[in-house]
């Protein structure tokens, strides 16, 4: 596996799965300043040089404190029912919704993952806000969200390498809460990961702490395909991956 990934494979805790933890080098985290100013809702032609510089400086500041980590576990033989929109895995039934189920239909294995930036990003943002630096605190919050997505991307890429080793290809990644898959299914996902959650905890209301965390699943199989996100198929207007929110 690539030199800058520090990967630790932990003992096989689940019946069929293997659990993997990743501590990526911070230099692998990619944050596009253009997306950050997009999230600030500044039209691309109208960003002041001052703001551009500030964003770049803050990205560096964030990268100097963040301790990203990710983990994933692989499970065999999912039973996916497209018409019901469900997936049975290790005795748990996930209500994926038809759209996600159809994208995962040909999976022979399912990788469950969690990626997190840790508490450092929240602390850094809070520190700035407490000092009265409203803009800085706000931008750091946005960078933290982008970083959480970037860590999920690293988990996704690593899963791809693992799957390729056993001659399989992988799907896009899907998260509970996206595409009308109920966020409460996160409880099952965490139960399946049985402790391999890189320190991320779930609240009773199925949300993750630290906040800057992302969970999800990836399907693997000989006939899987990683595609551009098919926004036209989905009716989730405010999706993170939706065309409008990409490439500001």
């Amino acid at each position, binding site marked *: 596996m690539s030199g800058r990934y520090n990967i630790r494979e932990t003992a096989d805790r689940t019946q069929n799965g293997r659990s993997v933890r990743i501590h990526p080098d911070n230099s692998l985290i990619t944050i596009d300043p253009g997306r950050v100013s997009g999230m600030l809702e*500044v039209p691309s032609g109208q960003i*002041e040089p001052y703001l551009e510089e500030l964003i770049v400086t803050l990205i560096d500041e964030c990268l100097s404190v963040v301790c990203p980590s990710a983990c994933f576990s692989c499970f065999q033989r999912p039973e996916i029912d497209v018409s019901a929109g469900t997936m049975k895995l290790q005795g748990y039934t996930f209500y994926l919704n038809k759209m996600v189920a159809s994208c995962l239909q040909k999976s022979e294995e399912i990788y469950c993952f969690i990626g997190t930036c840790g508490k450092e990003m929240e602390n850094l943002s809070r520190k700035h806000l407490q000092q009265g630096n409203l*803009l800085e605190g*706000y931008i750091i*919050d*946005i960078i933290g*969200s982008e970083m959480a997505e970037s860590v999920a991307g690293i988990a996704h890429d690593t899963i791809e390498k693992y799957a390729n080793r056993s001659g399989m290809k992988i799907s896009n990644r899907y998260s509970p809460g996206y595409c009308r898959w109920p966020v409460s299914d996160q409880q099952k996902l965490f139960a399946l990961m049985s402790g391999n959650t890189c320190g991320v905890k779930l*609240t009773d*209301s199925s949300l993750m702490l630290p*906040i800057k965390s992302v969970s999800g699943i990836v399907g693997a199989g000989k006939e899987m395909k990683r595609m551009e996100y098919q926004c036209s198929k989905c009716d989730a207007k405010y999706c993170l991956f939706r065309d409008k929110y990409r490439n500001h």
Partner: protein
Amino acid sequence: MEKEELLQKILHCVENGKVNNAAPYPPNMKGKDGADEWTKKALEEGIGPDEILSEALIKAMDVVGKKFSEKKIFVPQMLISAKAMNAAMEHLKPYFQSGAVKKKGLFIIGTVAGDLHDIGKNLVGMIVEGAGWEVLDLGVDVNSRKFLDAIGSHKDAVVGLSALLTTTMANMKTIAQDIKQQYPEVPLIIGGAPVNENFKTEIGADGYAPDPQGAVSYLNSLIA
């Protein structure tokens, strides 16, 4: 310096986000005094804190809000102006504490139970505070109990609920109903990407706003 001129200086600094002398922003005011220094000076010259608040600070933030609605400025400039406003407010603090000057009112805000998305809620809180309101931020994953307790200690507050997940919209409904049952007269405004005007009506809230400026307009309408 004349009183009018001093108030104008403060207004100009807040409108353009000039916090203090050391602040590098905006570049064309580099090395000049900011809201911090001018407010101090105005108080030394004997200008009343209430006048500084209403004739300079609040007016400046009204202009900022208007420019934002007209898309002449964007969120970053609003936040820099809010910071300049806060720097001026630091000097007025003793007068607030003594009761000589009053803020517009108290706004209690929180992200509803089950939700941890708080970027939008934080932004609303900062801008509302910049517009002259006191803000009590209850944080994220806030249940009815916490909202009711906070209202219990501040019965004349206005309450804002934020939700970003479609699943937590249901919790927003429960919380809104719990609040209205116990405190029917407390004005309640909701916001967050998945909610809208119809949902507001459905859950019995009093206001909905798609952005912080809308929240400020709603709040100001309550005291107009």
